[in-house]
């Protein structure tokens, strides 16, 4: 049963309220979801745990309506994204997405940075830029998918990505000369 598909496990959860099947889904997808939430939330572990918890509960509530047009993981990530955004909307430090950020170089980060430094730099990004950066450069989402998920237009997604990359580059630049 361990190698069962997501769909067969989800069906067991729906049909039998099978905790064993749910446990397998949980173990399969939660490490990814947790890291995803952690990055979206700037490293806030408690908030990320809440997001993962709420995302799983919502997912099981709505599992019957999931049509399997995407992978289960993508669907779960979308739910987690919504909860992460809601968590940040409740946070006084929320910075809204802006439309007027001028795009800069669109080149991706070249991976020359220390991973821990990069995680910290991502966590320090403004929320709007961070969300787009995580979704696009870390998770590989397209701009149209990001725009749909965040309720912004593609231009905003692209400009936020450029902004995020510029901020990260500026933050990490001093490390480049240290070898």
């Amino acid at each position: 049963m361990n190698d069962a598909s997501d769909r067969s496990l989800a069906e067991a959860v729906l049909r039998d309220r099978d905790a064993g099947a749910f446990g397998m889904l949980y173990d399969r997808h939660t490490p990814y979801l947790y890291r995803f939430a952690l990055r979206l939330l700037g490293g806030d572990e408690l908030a990320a745990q809440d997001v993962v918890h709420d995302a799983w509960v919502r997912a099981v509530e709505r599992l019957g309506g999931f049509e399997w047009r995407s992978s289960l993981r993508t669907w779960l990530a979308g739910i987690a994204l919504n909860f992460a955004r809601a968590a940040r909307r409740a946070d006084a430090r929320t910075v809204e997405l802006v439309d007027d950020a001028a795009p800069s170089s669109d080149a991706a980060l070249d991976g020359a940075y220390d991973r821990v430094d990069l995680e910290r730099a991502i966590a320090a990004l403004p929320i709007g830029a961070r969300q787009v950066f995580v979704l696009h450069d870390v998770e590989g989402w397209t701009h149209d998918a990001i725009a749909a998920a965040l309720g912004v237009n593609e231009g905003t997604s692209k400009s936020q990505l450029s902004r995020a990359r510029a901020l990260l580059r500026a933050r990490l630049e001093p490390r480049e000369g240290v070898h």
Partner: protein
Amino acid sequence: MMPDLDHEATPPSDLRARVLRTLRAQGLLRPAGRWGPPAVRVAAGLLLFALGGLAGRLTAPQAPAVGGTGMPRYMLLLYADEEFQWDVPETRLVEEYRDWAVGLRAARFVRGERLDELELMLTSGDAVPGAPLAGRAARSRIGLSGYFVIEAASWEDAVALARTCPHLRYGGRIALRPVVPT
């Protein structure tokens, strides 16, 4: 090119139990302890498993007899030492080990027993064996704390199943050994 962000951050082990509690409280999963008669045997066995002391021999409700599925058997030897999270509430261990075993019951879970930490190592040369290890002394060294027997289609399948055992998440180790047919 995507940033090289690897996978160090791991969700805390108690998050799983929290999610399961909520889902059960909302009726989205079956409540613990209401698995039906066969599964109750599994739960009861694993209760003993987690509580230690008495061995809780259990037989999976749908597990085949020896050789019933035609699949080879493998033994998961569960080891634990001071790295193991001994402070984890027993109720959580009960829940997670049970969930794991119940999840395997469809074809593969055969039996599992908890071993008391009390251990006396004997060799042929011992005129007077030393005192058995127990308690903190037992936990300061890696010791065999229990076992599961499963049936799996292949060694790779058995490895994949063993990797899902909650014992690993709590700092335990698992030695996987094929059972030789006799």
